């Protein structure tokens, strides 16, 4: 097992390398020029060249790439072209906001999805199922930014119950305050995740109910709810682990839209700013970081899965 994990970890390295090459090439092929954000109408041509030189942008692209790799290996992910701060620091600074938001959204979604999915699966094709099914249809079909706007309109503007933006009331340092700010964005994201989870759990519940052990329990005269929540639940939780692993990738980039609407100070909004300013070290940093999360997430899911269900062999 340990060997396998090490091997999988080593495999991520070439993957990340390729991801970085793809990403870098894309940025360099693009027509934009980051120096332009510094240029002013009455700068001399040599002023512009000086800035370009200072940022290392006058070197051939492959050299720039190697310099970037060097910074990368040294562990700071390079420096932002705009504010010259180390990229890793900026990402880590924003990480808690995004991770907290996504983490609680995923947790909320799972907590809601399990009973909904079980009930829907157990009552296949009855009205409860149809209702839950329809809700989850809406869940995967609704544009999250629209939902965000509607909720904001209702709770922040009409009812004045919740703040409309940001993560904190200024000067207030309390977890409760952060929680209050997080309710809207978290609900929006959770609703998005919820639909997928419910459908997944529903179909595996349906699958499980056909299994022998369920029939045996019935034969023993167990109540349906007992079977469902005591026995089926255990088996249904398996796919949820995989789902969670796959959600890891979203952790970083997935909240871009929601963070924008609610001015949530996370990695998504950092990414938006970087993309607009063509700040390639920051873009690369975020991309790599989220790729890493995605790859690791899938890996962890695979490993956990093989722990819980030894029948599944870990793919090398």
């Amino acid at each position, binding site marked *: 097992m340990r060997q396998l994990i090490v091997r999988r970890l080593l495999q991520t390295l070439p993957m990340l390398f390729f991801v970085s090459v793809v990403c870098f090439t*894309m940025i360099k092929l693009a027509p934009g020029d980051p120096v332009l954000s510094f240029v002013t109408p009455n700068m001399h041509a040599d002023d512009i060249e000086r800035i370009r030189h200072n940022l290392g942008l006058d070197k051939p692209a492959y050299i720039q790439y190697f310099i970037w790799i060097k910074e990368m290996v040294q562990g700071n992910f390079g420096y932002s072209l705009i504010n010259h701060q180390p990229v890793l620091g900026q990402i880590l600074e924003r990480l808690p906001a995004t991770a907290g938001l996504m983490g609680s959204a995923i947790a909320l979604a799972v907590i809601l999805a399990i009973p909904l999915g079980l009930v829907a699966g157990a009552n296949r094709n009855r009205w409860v199922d149809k209702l839950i099914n329809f809700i989850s249809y809406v869940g995967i079909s609704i544009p999250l930014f*629209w939902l965000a706007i509607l909720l904001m309109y209702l709770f922040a*503007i009409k009812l004045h119950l919740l703040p409309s933006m940001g993560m904190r009331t200024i000067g207030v340092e309390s977890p409760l305050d952060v929680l209050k700010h997080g309710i809207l964005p978290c609900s929006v994201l959770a609703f998005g995740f919820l639909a997928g989870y419910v459908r997944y759990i529903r179909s595996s519940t349906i699958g499980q109910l056909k299994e022998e052990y369920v029939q045996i329990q019935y034969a023993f005269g167990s109540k349906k709810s007992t079977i469902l929540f005591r026995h089926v639940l255990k088996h249904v939780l398996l796919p949820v682990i995989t789902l969670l692993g796959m959600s890891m990738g979203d952790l970083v980039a997935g909240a871009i839209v929601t963070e924008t609407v609610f001015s949530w100070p996370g990695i998504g909004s950092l990414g938006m700013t970087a993309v607009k300013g063509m700040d390639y070290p920051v873009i690369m940093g975020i991309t790599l970081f989220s790729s890493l999360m995605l790859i690791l997430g899938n890996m962890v899911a695979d490993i956990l899965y093989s722990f819980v269900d030894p029948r599944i062999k870990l793919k090398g």
Partner: protein
Amino acid sequence: MNRSKWKNLQSELFTNGLGVAALAVLAIFTLGAIFAFLSGYDPNAMDAMARLTKPGAGHLFGTDDYGRDYLSRALYGGRVSLLVGFASMVVATFVGVMVGVISGYFGGWLDNLLMRMLDIIMSIPSFLILLLLSVYLKPSIGNLIIIIALLMWMNVARVVRAETLTIKEREYVLYAKASGQSSFGMIWRHILPGLVPVIIVGATNNIASAIMMESSLSFLGFGVQPPNATWGSMLNSAQGYIAEAPYLALFPGLMILLTVLSFNVLGDILRVGFEPKLIRR
């Protein structure tokens, strides 16, 4: 695909109330988009005097912040949204099927190479790529279609490859192969027809996600450029008037929701319709 399967599908579609509703919604929106010019207003004609008119007799959906008729903007916007959704689905499906079939049919190093490529592309968070590409490529409808297609073909390729692997092992296919048919002939005559169900289901779901991606991009201001509107970009500007003119946010949002919902519902019905073949998925 034999006849009974189509029958099965038909009955699924029309006995299911949701299915009929979905078809109806899509038919209405498509017709609306095609005959948008009948609305009687130029969607880009500004009228400073008629800013933010509430929905009513003259303007069914009201007017926006430049006094443009919101109904005709929604219809023309739908044209772009639907077109982008449909076209990127076609491109993505085409590429996905090509890669999937080649990979699955030929196997070996080619399969390995293609699948590793796929792994790499899939491990870059897609929305981030979407943002990057749309900033760097000039925003135009054509580019938007390509960008979105680039992000969707992988799923099709995966499913198609898996399906190809099973079809390949069927007896009639093995027999045909043994009788010396060319690879191309094999794929064309025996593999592709067997893939039709997965392709149709995949394509339907892809339209839904393409429309969603397009609207998210436009909402962030990276999509189709003004004065042209799409539902997403309309929502973007509507956000600023949410307090005084909530209807601006209501209409385009509802239209996206209904369209995507319809395609998703259809996708599921199709999938069930093609059962038992696809039941294991």
